[in-house]
């Protein structure tokens, strides 16, 4: 109903087909109230703009009627009282409208989008920003993942965010407003998704060379599926099954991989890059830059600098069978 108020053709563009990161396709209570706020404000904005355009056109029409533009010699500057217009439309009207908006948005709606109190939710997820990926930890469990956050549906989740380096901003528009990740402080936001699904988000604060490739997915699972996922994620890595994968595991542990990555249950415990314990369970690589399949994984290991120039992972000197072995190992880490 409210959308009928909107006078703009823009409404067709904005609410038409479903898109990946659309703040006007809310999938949570929080995003819903924000979107509603926007539709009302946009309706008001179009009316305000129409009023001013009307006045501009009126000035043109009135001058036309007086035969303006041919000759202004002899026209004398005229003083007419316009005070009532300026005081009424320029002071009184905006005071009423702005106060209304202020009270609704900043005293009432804001309560919905505020950070939840510390013990208000049963699940707390920690997100730590890095140049240029997201580290994700589940408080009270050993589960660690990267760039792909799983949460249960219709369950308030407290998301605690901070940064390990520069300022980033966590933003999944369909689920809630954004919150900055800062070094030295922890900020919080609530995620409480209405529907099962996959929601794309992206870093919103400029954070350096690969700011453009710092995406993330939030997977909203059914509660049962989420419990299974979390239990699995907390387990150590699966042992390699084939001979090729076993060779890959040895190379991973002794080669340069282990200097940056952790795989639980192995000797690789470094924390520079993302935790790879269950890397094969993720759908994407390099912070939602490429799909996670065999080819892309091999390409990422060997040529990460051409896929995401400037990222912290160097191009690894692994070719042919050696590369296949590491890929086979990582592909087995479901």
């Amino acid at each position, binding site marked *: 109903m409210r959308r009928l108020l909107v006078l703009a053709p823009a409404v067709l563009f904005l609410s038409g087909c479903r898109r990946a990161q659309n703040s006007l396709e809310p999938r949570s209570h929080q995003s819903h109230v924000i979107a509603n706020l926007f539709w009302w404000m946009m309706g008001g904005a179009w009316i305000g703009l129409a009023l001013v355009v009307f006045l501009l056109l009126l000035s043109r029409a009135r*001058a036309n009627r007086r035969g303006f533009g041919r000759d*202004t010699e002899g026209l004398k500057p005229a003083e007419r009282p316009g005070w009532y217009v*300026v005081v009424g439309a320029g002071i009184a009207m905006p005071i009423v409208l702005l106060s209304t908006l202020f009270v609704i948005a900043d005293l009432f709606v*804001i309560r919905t989008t505020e950070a939840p109190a510390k013990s208000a939710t049963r699940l707390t997820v920690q997100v730590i920003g890095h140049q240029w990926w997201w580290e994700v930890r589940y408080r009270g469990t050993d589960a660690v993942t990267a760039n792909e956050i799983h949460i249960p549906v219709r369950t308030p989740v407290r998301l605690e965010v901070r940064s390990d380096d520069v300022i980033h901003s966590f933003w999944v528009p369909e689920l809630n407003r954004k919150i900055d990740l800062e070094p030295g402080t922890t900020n919080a936001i609530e995620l409480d998704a209405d529907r099962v699904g996959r929601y794309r988000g992206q870093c919103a604060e*400029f954070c350096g060379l690969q700011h453009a490739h710092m995406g993330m997915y939030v997977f909203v699972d059914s509660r049962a599926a989420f419990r299974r996922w979390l239990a699995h994620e907390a387990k150590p890595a699966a042992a390699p099954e084939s001979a090729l994968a076993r060779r890959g595991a040895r190379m991973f542990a002794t080669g340069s991989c282990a200097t940056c990555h952790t795989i639980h249950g192995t000797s690789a415990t470094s924390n520079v890059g993302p935790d790879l314990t269950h890397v094969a369970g993720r759908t994407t690589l390099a912070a939602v830059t490429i799909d996670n399949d065999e080819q892309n994984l091999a390409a990422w290991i060997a040529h990460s600098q051409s896929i995401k120039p400037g990222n912290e992972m160097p191009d690894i000197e692994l070719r042919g069978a050696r590369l296949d072995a590491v890929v086979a190992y990582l592909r087995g880490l479901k």
Partner: protein
Amino acid sequence: MAVATPPTPTAGERVDRLELMWQSRPGVLGWLTTTDHKKIGLLYFWATLVFFAAGGVEALLIRTQLSQPNEKLVSPNTYDQLFTMHGITMIFFFIIPMSTGAFGNYLIPLMIGARDMAFPRMNALSFWLFAASGIFIYTSLFLGIAPNAGWFNYVPLANRQFDTGRNIDFYSLGIIFNSISSTLTAGQFIVTIFKSRAPGMSLNRMPLFCFAYLAASLGLLFALPVLSADTILLFLDRNVGTHFFDVAHGGSALLWQHLFWFFGHPEVYILIVPAMGIATSIIPAFTQRKMVAFPLVAIAELLVVFIGFGVWAHHMFATGMPTISLVFFAAATAMVVIPSTIQVFAWCWSMVTGTARFRTPLLFIAGFIFMFVTGGLTGIMFLAIPFDQQVTDTYFVIAHFHYIIFGAAVFPLFGGMYYWFPKVTGKLYYELPGQISFWILFVGTNLLFFPMHIVGLLGMPRRVYTYSDGLGWTAYNLAETIGGYVTLVGILLLLGNLAASYFRGAPAGPDPWHGPTLEWATSSPPPDYDFPVIPKVTSAYPNWDPADRQEDRRKLAEGVLVLDEGHEQVATSPVDGLFAEIVEMPHESPWPIILALTVSLVFTMLVLQKFGVAAVMAVLCVLALLGWHSKEPQES
């Protein structure tokens, strides 16, 4: 000397004597040593036009890179430098110096009936410092090490740990360098506006244009020191090893943001207020009507900057500040809307109740009102904190502030170029190409900036060098890029029209528009001494008072207030504009450019981290200052 001289010589002889007294040195040397506000204004105009071209090329490179997904026209590193330099250039090296340096310098003395700025040599100094700071910061771009952390340059990204090159040192030093120039300009305008008005021009009779420039100058004077402090702290953090912004050692990363936006938000109003001043000059001229609610508009121009100092944290709503602070700044943000709505309805109602002639300058003002209201309405949306937190740092914000900064701050500059073109050149511009250039620009900028609202709502963050297909952003981005090139065509047509008019336009005469303010009372282009006689002022629209202009001619014949016995102008009391004294003004001087050169050497040595040599160069600055003061103009 006495106020009146005995009426022996004829008016013609007096004017000849003035001519001789105010004549400037010919040729290049004349331009390098000039202290004439009109020549300095033109220098500013040409220099800022060069920077506008540079910032425009950067913008088009950005738009071309974003025209389609995964485009590889520029590298991420180049892209970061491009958008940072685009912001720095358009704000510090185009809009501010174009509106204050070019328009303000040229027009304020003419509008208040003065012969020059209050401190002509300082005026020259501020131009040369401005030009030098621009060359300084652009050197970094040509070396490939331009600032690359965005124009608001957040730490820790901009600190040494994450940005190891010289890039950010060029930023901090370049900003401080440029601030010196802007501070001088601001002080200069304030003193000129308060002290150099023609006798009779009390504050309530001062043109609204001057109120706007007074507001902008006061804003600059109070905002710039905070920016300088911020950039000095950053320079120290990066080069001396202090930890002001280093969280790991007890510093604060948010401190940078607070100080930056304490400057940065008033800065937005500093950009826009001169444009409002231009609007309040053009509207009365093309409606042949005095401004509606003149005192309210004057107060609103000052208030918008004043309240603008209390809203800075609305740029930081997503940083996790306590809700109570957010609500305070949102309330201030609501308040700052009122002075703008006052002005919008005063402009509109003046146009409705006057007889509007939609010549090119007024078309640009109508376009300005449209763009300002659009950008203002999206600005109002940001006071709804949850919505601000949703769209901040997205293209929605880019759309909002380009409507304000390009649509509202630059359109009046274009309109002003047309409006005052006859005054500056003595020629009329071509009307039809002028109107066409307006419509191309109007369509182009809306096509360029409107779709940004939509992609912002669709989740596109700002400052991404590329994006992938399938997010629904592609078509909008292509439209924006096309709009960018249409805008370019409009600007080229505008400049081409003015260039052709300069060479082939019809003579304009002193007052082609029947303009209300004093600049239209003197010949076009104005003589070196601006006015043969210090004009009489009895209202805010002195050129619409024929009796007073008649009186000027009589005074010229009698030799009253002609001041043809020296390089002189009158000083008046700040509020009532009562005659106070006659002051001897300095002639042209080589010291401003010499001092600017020595200051440039200091900054060059600082960016090279040769602090010892920099200290030696600072001694040179002191020597140049001593030279400057070796011959003070005499007060009589």
